[in-house]
């Protein structure tokens, strides 16, 4: 089987096999085997729920170190709007842009600017005949992966565009080539990531042929250096030079849940849900057509939206307040969607159904295994204790059907077996004049 790239990984040395994480995973992708919580790669959506819950910091995220800057002759930082909310009293973004340059980047392209372009393009798309209502945002890669795995019927509803990060990567590369005259491969466009899902998506974009962002560093890792540089700079006067037009309120708003849908202006028929449980609830309902007249759905796997990513440093709710304070001072919208950007935004994106949740390899096998699963399940205790290493008795039955576990991994079944064996043993010894199991001789 093809091994997928995932940023979420297990640090085996730290894992104590406590099973806290297995029940929290929305795709049932974790099994404790030999005392360690392994991730089933095909099912992981990099949502980071396991990172949030693990009391031992054994679930972690990979990302690029700042050393990646050395690989290129010219580098462009792609800061997401949620990054502005990690700092106190940031009423002027110029200082952050200068800070990024001081940390080692040659240039900056704000992802919020790209987001603002996408809001404009989405408004156009919503009025076109091609839109499948409700249109579902594709900005959160964990959500897109979840849809590909569990809600394939909703794939046609996904917004058929680049995401803000991808668009920023593409536009920044083009502008940097023009500015420096360097070949594209010598220019590194590096995202400052709030979450593992975006690290993964930049490495292996969903439904795109080539990657467009050259690397992803974590907010929490760049934060100390950035803060130091920003403090040293103190204040900046006037507009600073950056590759992109600075964003307005619309672009900044994307940093939190509700920002993308609020930017649609024209429709009140939208919904924004955040937190993976809520996202699943909404997807289930849309799949069964429970909301009539809904036109746009914004979904973020992290609580509060990108401000709630596990690679951030600030509390998501405080971050929201800070983001709103910054946005208030800005004009609503600063970009103008031209033909050139439109052509870049609207890509051929082929998200396809991922059968990793299926029981077998084809319809017949699925069906037969399903029947087997029901029979096995009927013989299990049904208490979902997790001691077998699977999140539920049903998931355990599935593992048995797939040949990845045996019934005796169930501690309840094992105990019954032991008791039977003990009874048989003592009955035998009492017959021979020995003691029974209560020491009656």
């Amino acid at each position, binding site marked *: 089987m093809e091994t997928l790239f995932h940023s979420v990984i297990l640090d085996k040395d730290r894992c104590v096999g406590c099973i806290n994480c297995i029940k929290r995973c929305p795709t049932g992708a974790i099994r404790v085997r030999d005392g360690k919580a392994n991730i089933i790669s095909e099912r992981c959506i990099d949502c980071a729920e396991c990172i949030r819950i693990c009391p031992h910091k054994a679930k972690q995220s990979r990302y690029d170190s700042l050393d990646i800057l050395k690989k290129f002759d010219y580098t462009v930082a792609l800061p997401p709007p949620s990054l502005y909310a990690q700092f106190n009293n940031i009423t002027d973004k110029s200082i952050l842009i200068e800070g990024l340059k001081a940390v080692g980047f040659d240039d900056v392209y704000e992802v919020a600017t790209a987001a603002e372009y996408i809001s404009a393009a989405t408004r156009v798309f919503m009025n076109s005949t091609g839109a499948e209502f409700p249109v579902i945002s594709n900005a959160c890669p964990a959500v897109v992966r979840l849809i590909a795995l569990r809600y394939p019927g909703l794939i046609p509803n996904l917004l058929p565009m680049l995401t803000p990060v991808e668009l920023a990567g593409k536009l920044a590369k083009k502008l940097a080539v023009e500015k420096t005259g360097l070949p594209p491969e010598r220019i590194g466009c590096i995202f400052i990531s709030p979450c593992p899902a975006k690290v993964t998506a930049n490495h292996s974009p969903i439904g795109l042929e080539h990657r467009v962002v050259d690397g992803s560093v974590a907010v929490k890792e760049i934060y100390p250096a950035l803060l130091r540089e920003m403090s040293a700079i103190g204040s900046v006067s006037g507009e600073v030079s950056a590759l992109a037009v600075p964003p307005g309120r619309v672009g900044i708003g994307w940093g939190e849940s509700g920002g993308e849908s609020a930017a649609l202006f024209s429709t009140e028929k939208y919904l924004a849900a955040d937190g993976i449980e809520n996202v699943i609830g909404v997807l*289930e309902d849309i799949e069964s*057509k429970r909301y009539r007249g809904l036109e746009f759905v914004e979904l973020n796997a992290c609580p509060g939206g990108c401000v709630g990513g596990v690679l951030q440093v600030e509390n998501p709710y405080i971050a929201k307040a800070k983001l709103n304070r910054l946005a208030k001072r800005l004009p609503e919208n600063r970009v103008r969607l031209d033909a050139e950007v439109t052509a870049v935004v609207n890509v051929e994106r082929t998200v396809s159904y991922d059968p990793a949740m299926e029981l077998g390899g084809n319809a017949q096998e699925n069906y037969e295994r399903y029947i087997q*699963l029901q029979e096995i399940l009927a013989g299990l205790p049904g208490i979902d204790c997790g001691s077998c290493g699977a999140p539920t008795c049903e998931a355990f039955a599935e593992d048995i059907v797939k040949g990845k576990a045996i019934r005796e991994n169930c501690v309840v079944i094992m105990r019954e077996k032991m008791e039977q064996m003990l009874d048989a043993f003592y009955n035998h010894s009492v017959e021979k004049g020995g003691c029974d199991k209560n020491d009656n001789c």
Partner: protein
Amino acid sequence: MAGGAIRFHYDVSGSEFSLAGTASADVKAQLKKMGVPSDAIRRAAIALYEGEINLVIHAGGGAIDVDMAPGVINMAITDEGPGIPDIDLAMSEGYSSASDEVRNLGFGAGMGLPNMKKYTDSFDIQSQVGKGTSITMSVRY
């Protein structure tokens, strides 16, 4: 599980509104596990959900029976509620006898029965006033 068919039975309570939709959600989850194509799942889920809601709102509860064999999902929704006096009228798009109270909850758009028919491959409804209603429908794939 005789004869290779898989059967599910759900008793739907007429008094707990918060539970409305759980039977259809469970059937949907089972169909997914079985690897049934998503379009068929979606159609069955829509039809069952509407039927389940009608049990709760109009019939004071009832039962849902689903059996699944490769290629077909058969669904039966039965109740011993008030019955439907004029089936043709009930089947017409937009007709609802729901109270304003229920409509305010977002139900009672009068599209339930028409959608059950529209999204399934076969649909049959029998009803007798004072006795109850019985709907059988199937989705093929």
